[in-house]
């Protein structure tokens, strides 16, 4: 019998090795990674937890069976199940885009290895091991972020730095809580643990002023690898935060929890909204759009209610659509301009790379939270939830979305600028923007718009996921 947790850890690692060997080909490794991620996502969602299932050759898979690995327990719980399904399906989407926009990059094998590590982080108990696995994943992601022949991935280095700085707080918190269990009179231990946790998660989530890695991780790296970090890696950190809140429920009932989370999110929204329209390069713009989105998710969590948690979870579910499209568009445009993503260098490139341009614009619409896009689904619900109690924060959220949109508009106007020479005016697709790329972009755009038009596809999943957590009141 194969235990489910072991399968989720070992299969991505094994396929990562195979994919690395096959990396000289363009399609095979990417499609193998897509297939593996989809299969694992499907297995996590559909296979029953309480009974083993027969698969090939009379073998059985028991998804709910706990595994002891080096003396630590790995167990697939209901909340982790949905979180892992999100990670696998979102990864499949990113690998699908990488097939056309980052072929033969280390993102594909490293992405699979990261999936294994982050799955381990969600499965393992106690939580100190999860923190260590997230740190190892951050170190590995540097390899995926560094573009071959490109500038040094300083964003990757910063990401690694901030994750490393967050590690001590998470590990010491666990010791403090163990000590508090022995000496409940020492309430100072709780205050110290809460402060350390707040600082550690501020570093991991890119809360202002620790946000510098967020724009950098997209601006000078492989954009889709940056998206992987900001969706899958960041998603794992969010689920780790929820696990901490679930394990130590006094954290969410702390009198300052709401205000602290709200201020953190508000800071990210304001900084992202201010800096996004000021960017002359599209790479940092994508990063600031992600910062606004993360900030808005924190504001939703700051509502300290089941609705707020559902909206936070919904934001992770839809973020890969917008961010993935933006990163894919950015990759395509960089490939056409020789690696430069300055608006001046991209002048008139929209006619030569129409599909990359379309991906960037539709992704930007979603990240700005505009209607008929995936991002609108949860932003609209957030505006409605916030409006009665805090109309000013709704205004700031709208302005931040507008800031992102201004940045995208600025890029688009440069991309569609009419070239000076007549020979450059014909609409000729570059080799990077061929019909296969068009198919991939159209599928991704249809997915993004489809979720925007039919939110009932993803909203119940977020609500179901929120039900598995008990640390917040309804």
């Amino acid at each position: 019998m194969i235990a489910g947790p072991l399968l989720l850890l070992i299969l991505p690692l094994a396929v990562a090795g195979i994919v690395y060997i096959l990396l000289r080909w363009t399609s095979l490794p990417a499609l193998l990674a897509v297939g593996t991620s989809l299969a694992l996502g499907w297995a996590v969602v559909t296979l029953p937890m309480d009974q083993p299932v027969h698969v090939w050759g009379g073998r059985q898979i028991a998804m709910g069976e706990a595994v002891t690995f080096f003396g630590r327990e790995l167990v697939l719980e209901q909340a982790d199940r949905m979180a892992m399904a999100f990670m696998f399906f979102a990864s499949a989407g990113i690998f699908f885009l990488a097939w056309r926009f980052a072929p033969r990059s280390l993102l594909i094998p490293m992405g699979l290895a990261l999936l294994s590590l982050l799955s381990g982080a969600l499965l393992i108990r106690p939580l100190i091991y999860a923190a260590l696995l997230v740190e190892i994943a951050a170190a590995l992601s540097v390899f995926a972020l560094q573009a071959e022949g490109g500038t040094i991935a300083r964003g990757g280095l910063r990401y690694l730095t901030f994750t490393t700085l967050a590690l001590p707080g998470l590990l010491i918190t666990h010791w403090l809580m163990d000590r508090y269990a022995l000496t409940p009179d020492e309430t100072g231990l709780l205050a110290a643990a809460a402060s350390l946790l707040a600082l550690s998660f501020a570093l991991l989530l890119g809360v202002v002023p620790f946000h510098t890695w967020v724009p950098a991780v997209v601006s000078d790296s492989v954009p889709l690898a940056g998206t992987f970090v900001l969706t899958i890696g960041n998603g794992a950190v969010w689920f780790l935060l929820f696990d901490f809140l679930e394990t130590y429920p006094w954290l969410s009932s702390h009198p300052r929890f709401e205000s602290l989370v709200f201020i953190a999110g508000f800071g990210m929204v304001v900084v992202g909204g201010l800096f996004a329209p000021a960017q002359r390069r599209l790479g940092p713009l994508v990063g600031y759009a992600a910062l606004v989105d993360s900030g808005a998710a924190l504001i939703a969590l700051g509502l300290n209610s089941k609705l707020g948690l559902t909206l936070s979870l919904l934001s992770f579910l839809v973020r890969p659509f917008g961010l993935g499209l933006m990163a894919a568009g950015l990759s395509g445009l960089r490939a056409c301009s020789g690696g430069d993503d300055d608006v001046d260098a991209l002048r008139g490139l929209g006619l030569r790379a129409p599909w990359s341009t379309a991906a960037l614009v539709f992704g930007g619409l979603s990240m700005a939270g505009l209607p008929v896009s995936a991002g609108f689904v949860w932003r609209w619900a957030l505006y409605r939830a916030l409006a009665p109690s805090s109309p000013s924060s709704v205004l700031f959220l709208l302005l931040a979305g507008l800031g992102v949109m201004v940045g995208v508009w600025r890029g688009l106007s440069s991309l569609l600028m009419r070239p000076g020479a007549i020979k450059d005016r014909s609409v000729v697709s570059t080799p990077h923007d061929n019909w296969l790329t068009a198919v991939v972009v159209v599928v991704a755009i249809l997915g993004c718009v489809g979720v925007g038009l039919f939110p009932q596809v993803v909203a119940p999943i977020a609500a179901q996921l929120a039900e598995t957590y008990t640390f917040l009141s309804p």
Partner: protein
Amino acid sequence: MPTLVDILARVSFLAAMPAVAGILVTAGLLVVSRDWRLDVTALTLQYFFVVLLLTRLIRLEVAAVKGLTGWMICMVFYLTERRASMLEQVPSDEEKAGSRRWKISARASFCLLAGLLVSVASYTAALRFPLPEVPADITLACYLLVGLGLLLIGLSEAPMQVGLGLLTFLSGFDLFYVALEPSLAVAGLLGAVSFLIALATAYLRAAQIAIEGDRSTS
């Protein structure tokens, strides 16, 4: 032939303030110097002094394994920088400046001053906020490693400098954390984290050299 554990047992008389002084000197050298040979030597010695202090908190064999991991990291840095220096045809401005003896650059002076300030702050912190479960001298060593590691990270964006800073920071934390959590699994994972940080920064350094090589040939 004496084993590593025997050697560590013989020099255990250094595992107090002399080791802390050694940590101050080696971490200070990492902050001030930009010569990779000096940096790798300082990091190697720093791991030696950290292992000496670790022998007071955990079993000698476990401390020896942590030391071996550290020295393997030094080997990774040595091989990367040696390869880089072979590929670099023209010495950089910093190397030219470094070759001028008895002259301290403005950058080195600033780093020295900043290092001194951080060291004084670490000493004050060790007196005012003693760490639980560890003796006073080890508390000082932890604060020095964490403070100077953070300074190193903040002073440069070069992959190797940041890597050295992260490893120094982690050494300081590890020295404290082994007293709280003596689990072998945690020790192993922390070792893996350090080694992967070294590999990641060495990879970025190799990419940097490749880019510089491309620029010089074009």
